[in-house]
């Protein structure tokens, strides 16, 4: 915060592109942030949720009489009441998957351990908790369904009877001609099975909401940390019979989400029903164990029968695979993930023949929701596994095969086989940068020197894309009847009464630094210091601008959010210029904005500060120059140029920008124990034009940390009965700062030709560490047993087993010579 206006203005041309101190950090590091749980309402009451101890069970009876009689208890809510008060939440899937009935509390059956069964509302959180012990629920346990593959078997349990199977959605994606590619190939590499495991991003702040109902206006005020409130409203409104304009969502500071908080509307719905039922403001803050049990998990995906036609020189011609995605007990945001992966069909590669037979199923596990890298990281992980396995089976160099198959910079913009347009990028250069960061040549040499000494060194690469600003029209590929397309965000930039510049946006930042970057953009356009720009964060659909897409998710703020801010600031700039021109009798293009004043270029005496302009419009408007119609209150909606995809061919541009993340790492594996130690870690990224390089680097670090945790330490696991065996931090080893090695970063900037400022959305990271660490482990295995790293989760024990896999065991990989 030590920069001063004069010093900075001498040394820099624009605020955009500078790593200025973040505006939000002062309050956050001092503990002065305002989060959902900081809201206090007079006469508020507390919710406790009694959750299912079973993965799958029929509810025979629920008796809340003793709980209701307990001291301090105001009301209870059961599934039977919910069945009466709520219609099932909307399903995105078409029929028969759309027959799934999802309520905010379990009705008749519980389908995952931790599913809320009864809500207790009491004067204190302790009283609610104690009373919950008095609730009697009679369960009839049912056999549980734990894996996606089992969900497709004919003789297993069916979770949602009306659907007739456990399939939420099925679709065949088929672009180019994979059959012809197989005929033309020299070899076909077959991989039996790859499994991407279940984990989550563990936001520091769990879900929370305070809901208040006003009978006079039938309005609900919802203070919460939902990160896509209008999506929540779309689910809650019809289900609860509340007109969506009577749901007033307010978000403030949010302690991380990574997508996980998008689906917390289920819990907000419980609070809304209780608020109306009790006439009291209702508070709910989730406990960590409850968050792990019943918050939101990442998608688990199994790839089967992968076939990769290749030329002898390593040219990959395509991929043919089956994918089974396990979305847990209720789809909620799903099955959107069943199309979102196709934003990055060929990853960074040139092959053009792809067939994926994709099925999403339900199981007796916690429902999934968007999770950093959502749905694309599973697919990108599979592609990177394929690249390494092909390289090793054909005895090709892992770097060379990538460079050879990468889409080249001169091919940009590049249309993928399914009509997506990669906007810009230089993948080979990013790879070189990543390899330099880890001293690649040195470690390759060390690896050879150490061969046979018992020290096992592995080098891995993860090349991924972080697609951002999605075209909601892709939802129609899932369900042709969905009335969605495009994307957009809205912002209001105005002069306030005393000339202050105030910016509002419909987003829900949760650590991305929106206040800072929005201020940089506005400061540049209006001739101000970012400290002179006030950015009000949070979504407030009762008082503030918003679109149906508003929120913070899917790597897009730099494009949609800042696009909206830029548009609104330009409109305000135009109004200020018109007003000043009218005052000074000059042409509008003769006006310049400098240091919070509007002045006629070259005439220092013809200047008026913003406070003077505001005074004229807001408090002295008899003096407005004749014929001017200015409000100094400007709103702009940014809308990327998208078309509706061809739903039959599953073809179209699904995302606007593609940031590149290429990570490389060096690991040492302890042969005696299977422990992996990261010796070097490098991340090269290309996020287009950088608005704030340090914020981007911070996102790279964060995504790398979460990915490293997922690759080595974190798995959400269930036993055969559907009991979650990792429901707290004792069993779920969430990665912490001390677990993350030193991360070296490098960045290049390939401006996006499609975004208003050349920037690309970024922040999810494409799961690059999972790919890079699995790649390095594969590099180790090829020095030993040639076992295949077929799972994305590799704790010490799994690596230990792979190192001891019999050389004659079925490795699950076959190379078929093409006789044709």
């Amino acid at each position, binding site marked *: 915060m030590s920069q001063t206006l004069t010093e900075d203005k001498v040394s820099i041309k624009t605020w955009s592109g500078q790593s200025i101190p973040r505006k939000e950090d002062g309050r956050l590091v001092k503990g002065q942030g305002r989060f959902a749980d900081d809201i206090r309402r007079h006469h508020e009451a507390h919710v406790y949720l009694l*959750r299912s101890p079973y993965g799958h069970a029929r509810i025979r009876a629920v008796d809340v009489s003793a709980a209701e009689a307990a001291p301090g208890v105001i009301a209870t809510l059961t599934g039977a009441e919910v069945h009466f008060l709520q219609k099932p939440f909307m399903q995105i899937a078409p029929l028969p998957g759309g027959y799934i009935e999802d309520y905010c509390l379990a009705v008749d059956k519980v389908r995952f351990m931790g599913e809320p069964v009864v809500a207790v509302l009491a004067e204190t959180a302790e009283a609610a908790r104690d009373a919950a012990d008095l609730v009697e629920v009679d369960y009839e346990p049912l056999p549980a369904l734990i894996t996606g593959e089992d969900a497709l078997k004919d003789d297993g349990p069916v979770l949602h009877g009306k659907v007739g199977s456990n399939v939420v959605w099925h679709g065949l994606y088929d672009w180019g001609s994979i059959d012809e590619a197989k005929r033309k190939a020299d070899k076909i590499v077959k991989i039996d099975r790859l499994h991407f495991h279940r984990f989550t991003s563990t936001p520091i702040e769990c879900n929370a909401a305070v809901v208040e109902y006003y009978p006079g206006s039938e309005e609900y005020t919802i203070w919460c940390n939902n990160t896509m409130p209008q999506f929540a409203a779309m689910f809650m409104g019809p289900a609860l019979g509340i007109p969506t304009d009577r749901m007033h969502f307010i978000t403030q500071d949010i302690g991380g989400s990574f997508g996980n908080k998008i689906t917390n509307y289920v819990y907000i719905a419980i609070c809304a029903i209780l608020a109306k039922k009790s006439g009291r403001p209702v508070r709910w803050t989730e406990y960590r164990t409850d968050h792990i049990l019943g918050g939101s998990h990442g998608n688990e995906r199994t790839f089967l029968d992968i076939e990769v036609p290749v030329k002898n020189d390593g040219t990959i011609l395509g991929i043919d695979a089956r994918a089974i995605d396990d979305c847990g007990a209720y789809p909620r945001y799903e099955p959107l993930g069943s199309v979102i992966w196709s934003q990055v069909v060929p990853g960074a590669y040139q092959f053009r023949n792809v067939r994926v037979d994709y099925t999403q199923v339900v199981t007796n596990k916690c429902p999934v929701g968007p999770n950093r890298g959502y749905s694309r990281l599973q697919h990108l992980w599979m592609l990177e596994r394929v690249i390494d396995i092909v390289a090793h089976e054909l005895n090709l160099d892992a770097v060379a095969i990538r460079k050879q198959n990468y889409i080249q910079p001169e091919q940009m913009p590049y249309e993928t086989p399914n009509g997506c347009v990669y906007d810009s990028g230089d993948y080979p250069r990013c790879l070189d940068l990543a390899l330099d960061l880890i001293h690649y040549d040195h470690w390759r040499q060390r690896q050879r020197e150490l061969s046979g000494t018992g020290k096992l060194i592995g080098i891995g690469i993860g090349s991924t894309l972080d697609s951002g600003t999605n075209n909601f029209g892709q939802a129609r590929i899932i369900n042709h009847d969905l009335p969605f397309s495009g994307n957009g965000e809205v912002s209001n930039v105005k002069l306030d009464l005393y000339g202050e510049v105030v910016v509002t946006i419909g987003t829900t930042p949760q650590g991305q630094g929106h206040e800072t970057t929005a201020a940089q953009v506005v400061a540049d356009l209006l001739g101000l210091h970012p400290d002179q720009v006030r950015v009000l964060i949070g979504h407030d659909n009762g008082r503030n601008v918003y679109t149906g897409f508003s929120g913070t998710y899917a790597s897009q703020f730099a494009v949609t959010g800042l696009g909206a801010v830029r548009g609104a600031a330009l409109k305000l700039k135009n109004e200020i210029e018109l007003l000043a021109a009218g005052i000074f009798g000059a042409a509008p293009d003769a006006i310049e904005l400098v240091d919070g004043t509007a002045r006629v270029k070259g005439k220092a005496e013809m200047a008026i500060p913003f406070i003077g302009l505001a005074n004229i419009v807001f408090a002295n408007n008899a003096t407005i120059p004749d014929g001017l119609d200015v409000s100094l209150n400007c709103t702009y909606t940014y809308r990327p140029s998208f078309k509706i995809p061809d739903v039959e061919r599953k073809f179209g541009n699904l995302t606007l920008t593609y940031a590149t993340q290429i990570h490389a790492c060096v690991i040492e594996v302890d042969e005696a*124990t299977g422990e992996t130690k990261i010796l070097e870690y490098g991340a090269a990224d290309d996020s287009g034009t950088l608005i704030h390089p340090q914020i981007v680097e911070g996102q790279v670090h964060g995504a790398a940390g979460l990915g490293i945790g997922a690759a*080595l*330490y974190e798995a959400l696991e269930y036993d055969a009965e559907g009991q979650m*065996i990792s*429901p707290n931090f004792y*069993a779920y080893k969430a990665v912490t700062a*001390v*677990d993350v090695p030193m991360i070296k970063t490098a960045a290049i900037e390939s401006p996006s030709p499609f975004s208003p400022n050349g920037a690309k959305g970024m922040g999810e990271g494409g799961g690059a560490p999972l790919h890079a660490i699995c790649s390095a482990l594969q590099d180790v295995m090829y020095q030993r047993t040639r076992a295949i790293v077929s799972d994305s989760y590799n704790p010490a024990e799994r690596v230990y087993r792979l190192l001891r896999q019999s050389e004659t065991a079925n490795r699950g990989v076959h190379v078929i010579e093409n006789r044709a």
Partner: protein
Amino acid sequence: MALLLRELEYVRPDSLEDAVRLLSELPDAGLLAGGQSLINVLKMRIGGYSTLIDISRLRELKAIEVGEKSLRVGAGVTYDELMHSMEVSLHRPTLVDVVGRIADPQVRNRGTLGGNCCYNDPTCHLPPILTAIGTVFEARGSHGTRMIPASEFFVSYYQTSLGPGEMLVALHVPKLKSRSGDGFVPLSVGGTDVLNIIAGAATVTLAEEGGIEEVVIVVTGASERPIRLESVEEGLKGTAGQPDDADRAFSLLDLALLDPPDDVHASAEYRRDMVPVFTRRALEQAMKNARRGIHD
């Protein structure tokens, strides 16, 4: 799933004597020291007490005294206090190293030695190393004081041999003898050793000519309690402690001793395989430390 305490009584006696008296008088009372494990257990409602007796401020439990052959460390000494104790650094430096690996500064500021031992979580750091170095536990109850060797103190998962109304007041840690060294090597979940799947601990004393005179090797995570690998110890005694000697000694490992758990962190089979790996590494570390003493 529910992280709130049940309502309970709380008392904070001013003296150890009062604390011991209250512990035997009050029905269903538990001791609260640093609370780093106990509060979690109570919040999860796995276990419960009707009264908590807060002993965290009792000065009698905070002393570290140097005796002729051993250190007497008060049960209420926190990890952080132990780490910064000159006496412990001088006379049993391994404890400073081991305790410094526990969790993070916040936990170390509150967690106590006595609490760690009485909780006896199989994933904790202290039970194996305290067993290996021959710690004696001083317990006080209404009938007076009792000395319990580590081999009898740690009974089973989350259980010690303390009786009803009995309280751990101090740990008697033998001072490191000359030509001796300790070792502690855990296999941990995650990148830091917050939670140990297996922990190997060892102490050795070398003869003047460098051979192994005394050795104790202990493992946790392989059974319900810290166990000594006596057959391996016997195999090592009198040898030079070279890799060949260790190979021979570890081939004598009595696998029947091992009854490891099978849980979310590791399978029983993997734990079994890891026992010789981590105990041997602990032995090697102990040997190294002991030899450093000789050659310095």
